[in-house]
């Protein structure tokens, strides 16, 4: 059975400026033991998608569609069942662990808390022991259980967040920019840890990041989001090496390949900002920044459809771009 499945998910916030369609019709699947990456600039709806899974969105958010975890719809689930699913079914590691940890409680207590809440009959001592074992599992000395969050470095706090996410042995982990604020070496340590969990425990992983080079290294598959929708999806390496949507191509170009003369002293990228979700352009949402747009782009919204891969073959790729769907190049 598919571990996680989004079916035509829409999330709309209501703010002072009116209705904000943050997620617009997302369909995605994640299997156990596999890693799906979600890429895109800030504001494209990645965190909204993540929070929708555990129903952590504010009340003002209107959610439609389905989110199935092991076949069960999370959106219609009762609160009692949902509480059980949080931590045991799926857990999230957010960016900026400092804000997610309670400053006045020791680390050990915070890691033990979900265990005490979710496992019947477990004693506080047993939970504390489990917490120490979890800290060791993420590469921290068990003595860190007695520390307070401020006594830890950013990398160590991020490891604590991962330990907490693992506390109840979830089937699915969502990592939302979990390594973004970390230095390369600490990031490498945390990525190694996360990838190890996927292979050893067979958990499913959704890895959200704006950093394509990280995603292409860690993920099996990548979905690129733009203005609330998936605009391209396919095998991680393929999507960046041979993008089939102009936006993924621009994102890929923003990450130079060190050692590649083609990207030496040639910073690539894209001008302008993502569109304001309150005032989306007609037709393709990417059109105002697109260098290969054709007339049709301003009139119709492109659907996410199969496109010819590299040289017309290769694994299945989908792209929401008229030009790519015609098999034409997406970069000028």
């Amino acid at each position, binding site marked *: 059975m598919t571990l996680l499945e989004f079916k035509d998910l829409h999330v709309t916030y209501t703010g002072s400026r009116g209705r904000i369609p943050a997620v617009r019709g997302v369909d995605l699947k994640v299997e156990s033991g596999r890693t799906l990456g979600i890429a895109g*600039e*800030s504001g494209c709806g990645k965190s909204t998608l993540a929070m929708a899974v555990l129903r952590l969105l504010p009340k003002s958010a209107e959610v439609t569609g389905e989110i199935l975890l092991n076949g069960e719809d999370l959106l219609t689930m009762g609160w009692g069942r949902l509480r059980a699913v949080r931590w045991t079914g799926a857990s999230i590691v957010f960016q900026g662990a400092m804000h997610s940890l309670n400053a006045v409680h020791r680390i050990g207590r915070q890691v033990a808390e979900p265990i005490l809440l979710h496992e019947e009959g477990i004693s506080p001592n047993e939970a504390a022991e489990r917490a120490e074992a979890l800290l060791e599992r993420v590469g921290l000395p068990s003595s860190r259980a007695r520390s307070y969050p401020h006594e830890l*470095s*950013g*990398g*160590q706090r991020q490891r604590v967040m991962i330990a907490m996410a693992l506390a109840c042995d979830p089937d699915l982990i969502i990592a939302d920019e979990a390594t973004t604020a970390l*230095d*390369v*070496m*600490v*990031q*490498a*340590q945390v*990525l*190694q840890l996360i990838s190890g969990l996927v292979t050893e425990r067979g958990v499913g992983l959704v890895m959200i990041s*704006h*950093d*394509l*080079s*990280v995603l*292409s*290294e*860690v993920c099996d598959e990548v979905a690129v989001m733009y203005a609330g929708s998936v605009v391209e999806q396919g095998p991680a390496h393929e999507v*960046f090496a041979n993008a089939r949507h102009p936006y993924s191509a*621009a*994102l890929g*170009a*923003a*990450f*130079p*390949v*060190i*050692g*590649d*003369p083609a*990207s*030496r*002293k*040639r*910073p*690539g*990228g*894209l*001008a*302008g*900002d*993502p569109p304001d979700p309150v005032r989306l352009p007609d037709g393709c949402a990417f059109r105002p920044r697109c260098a290969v747009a054709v007339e049709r782009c301003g009139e119709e919204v492109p659907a996410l459809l199969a496109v010819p891969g590299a040289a017309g073959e290769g694994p299945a790729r989908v792209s929401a771009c008229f030009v790519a769907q015609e098999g034409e190049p997406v970069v000028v």
Partner: protein
Amino acid sequence: MSSEARSSNEEPSSGSAPSSAAPVRGEKSLTARDLRVEFGLPGGRVARAVDGVDLDVAPGEIVALAGESGCGKTTLARTLLGLERSTGGTVAFGGEPLRYSTKALKAYRRQVQLVLQDPSGALNPRHTVYDAVAEGLRIHGITDDEPGRVADALSRAGLRPPEQFFLAYPHELSGGQRQRVVIAGALVLRPSILIADEPVASLDASVRGEILALLLRLKEEQGLGALVITHDLGLAWSIADRIAIMYLGRIVEQGPVEQVLTAPRHPYTRALVSVLPGAPALKEAVPEPIVLAGELPDASRIPGGCRFRPRCQEVAAGRAAEVLHRCESEDLEILGPESAPHLVACHLDRARREDARDGGARMAV
């Protein structure tokens, strides 16, 4: 420290692409020599945030300074700008040591300008673009042709036609445009050197390119020099001519970007390069990822001998046995700013090069 020690590091400058605009050394160069900055900590300990650095930045070149957080990058930048006083060594501009009187610093800042990191923090939301850029002129009491100077700075920062941006507020601009306004604010005094501490770290990936391209163009077309501080080696590959890798207050390797990043020699640089995601071209130089254990030690606990030794993968794997006594007891010399093209502060690297040279010499005989 002997001059031999330095020259043993020399390597013919092969393979590096010629820079399109050669840096101009001398009159307008920023130089640091044996620079040291210590902070007293409670309990009598001392943090050696910058612990002996030689560095040159000349007009017409971009130098990247890279290293993990806590290695001393920001302290070094602040000291180069005169915002922090050094506790040893010198900062000089055009050969003149920096003086710290208000007047001298003001004159200095017309030449060496800081570019702030976060455009939303650097810009006052209630000030127009015009006021934000004119601020530097007002601080320096430059009153002639203010609109002309502001327009010139904006257009050099790529905001054209500049008059269209005069009355805009930060929230009306894209992230990339806001960072351009911040850069225009630094350019308005027509400095010869910019110091940019993580200039694109807070920008979205797709927008970074336009700012990096701007820095590159300012260098190539207008001969500006820049020290770009970053933890992102990809950024150095995108724009820098030279790179200095900093570890715990010292530069441990420096040279042309092509050499340092594609043929790194210091074990620390090799480890940093090996964990870069998605860089297949480097697999030849460093085939396996080297994920160093632990984190950067505190600047108040710099290990004796080679400061990298407790984390050094060569020591851990027993490959440094022949020089281990030196790793443990001998600090390395401060790398000269550019006495040779590619400099490395490592006993093992030195021993291997000497062996290679002796071997080569014997064969030649």
